[in-house]
């Protein structure tokens, strides 16, 4: 059986608006690899207005990863999009239960833990995603073509989204499954959308992704360097939101200049 060793680099930084308002960074991410080598990554963006947004985002990514890594067989082994949809729906329900437990512990309501959530599973032959709320996943195929795996825009205004804890959240969930060998993946929260995607069609912007994908292939690349990039003046001049960026490559790929 073919096996891929993934390299995952991730960084979350607090936005300048959150600094000014003395709010913590409310993004979170988690990852895990199943025994057979499927990579699972979750990214969440807590609602700025929710009391326990940070805990909500943290709890959501952990519960999502836990659910998908502990299945009897790998999440993408069987079936196609429909099977993934059924599985990911169960995953979301388990995340919602985890949030409800947290809420009960804090004697709070579940909406105090409002957060968005993106879950991604990558195997050598397919990539699948589930998304509630904003943010996006971009994939590079073996030929170097970029694909927008998942991205949502809810409602008329920029500052509107759906949260995991919103009523009818599942109806807004987006499920995707892409067949093929992904060379690279990028998962990011909405703070990076205007920098990484070309509106109005949200087309992945190659000059944004290509250097980042080359970077993740280089053996000396570190999360600290990625974080420094997110903190750089150039990035901060364009957005004051919290930012999370997860880059995924395959180990053993040689960076080409």
């Amino acid at each position: 059986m073919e096996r891929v060793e993934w390299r995952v680099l991730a960084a979350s930084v607090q936005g300048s608006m959150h600094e000014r308002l003395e709010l913590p960074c409310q993004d979170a991410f988690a990852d895990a690899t199943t025994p057979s080598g499927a990579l699972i990554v979750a990214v969440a963006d807590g609602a700025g207005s929710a009391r326990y947004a940070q805990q909500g985002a943290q709890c959501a990514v952990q519960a999502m990863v836990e659910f998908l890594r502990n299945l009897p067989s790998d999440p993408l082994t069987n079936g196609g999009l429909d099977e993934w949809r059924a599985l990911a729906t169960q995953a979301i329900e388990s995340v919602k239960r985890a949030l409800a437990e947290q809420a009960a512990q804090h004697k709070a309501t579940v909406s105090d833990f409002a957060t968005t959530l993106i879950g991604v599973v990558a195997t050598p032959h397919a990539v699948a995603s589930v998304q509630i709320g904003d943010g996006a996943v971009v994939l590079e195929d073996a030929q170097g073509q970029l694909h927008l795996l998942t991205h949502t825009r809810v409602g008329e205004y920029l500052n509107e989204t759906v949260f995991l804890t919103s009523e009818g959240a599942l109806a807004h969930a987006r499920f995707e499954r892409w067949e093929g060998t992904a060379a690279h993946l990028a998962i990011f929260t909405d703070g990076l959308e205007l920098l990484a995607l070309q509106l109005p069609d949200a087309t992945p912007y190659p000059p944004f992704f290509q250097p980042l994908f080359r970077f993740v292939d280089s053996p000396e690349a570190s999360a600290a360097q990625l974080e420094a990039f997110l903190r750089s003046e150039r990035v901060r001049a364009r957005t004051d939101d919290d930012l999370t960026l997860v880059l995924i490559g395959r180990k053993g790929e040689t960076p080409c200049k």
Partner: protein
Amino acid sequence: MVTELEERVEFAENPEPRCACVLLLDTSGSMAGEKIDALNEGIRTFKEELQGDPLASRRVEVAIVTFDSQVQVVQDFVTVDAFEPPLLHASGQTAMGTGILRALELVRERKAVYKRNGIAYYRPWIFMITDGEPTEPDHIVQHAAQEVRREEENRGVAFFAVGVDKANMATLAEISVRQPLKLRGLAFRELFVWLSASMQRVSGSKPGDQVPLPPTGWSEI
């Protein structure tokens, strides 16, 4: 490597998202004197405060509609860096209802422009400041109040009303879905500093946030 990454990554060229804000201002005769002077000063403060925030100065678009015996769009939507605060004068009656309808129309037109040009935007604000009450026929005022309610329900706009001095707060409460606020004395400067801070929060907010607005230090309790 760090600098390399920073230097190598290019950003998509997207139009800056916009955050429209209409100042809907009472320039009737009762505003004459120190009130209109303080209001003019407040508008200048508003510009200065927003200009200090690089993101807000690119994203916030200001328009000014005045109402006295006439309704006038003194300033159509313009980004903060290009905004020249006008010098307002006070005289005449209080065509508040007509002013509200004009402001709502201006917002609708602006949203259409954004849509046509593929510009992402935030929910627009209308910020009304008055020291009196409408002097128009009831049906116009009622129509304006209905339209405000309808737009608020459809989440088309956020409408705020601030009463100054002897403003009829009961009438304002009938028009504005949100609780109207009473300005403490002539604290226009504080009011506009607050409005600027609120706009900065909205224009930098992330999707879905019910943006927590700063506490108002300028209103009576």
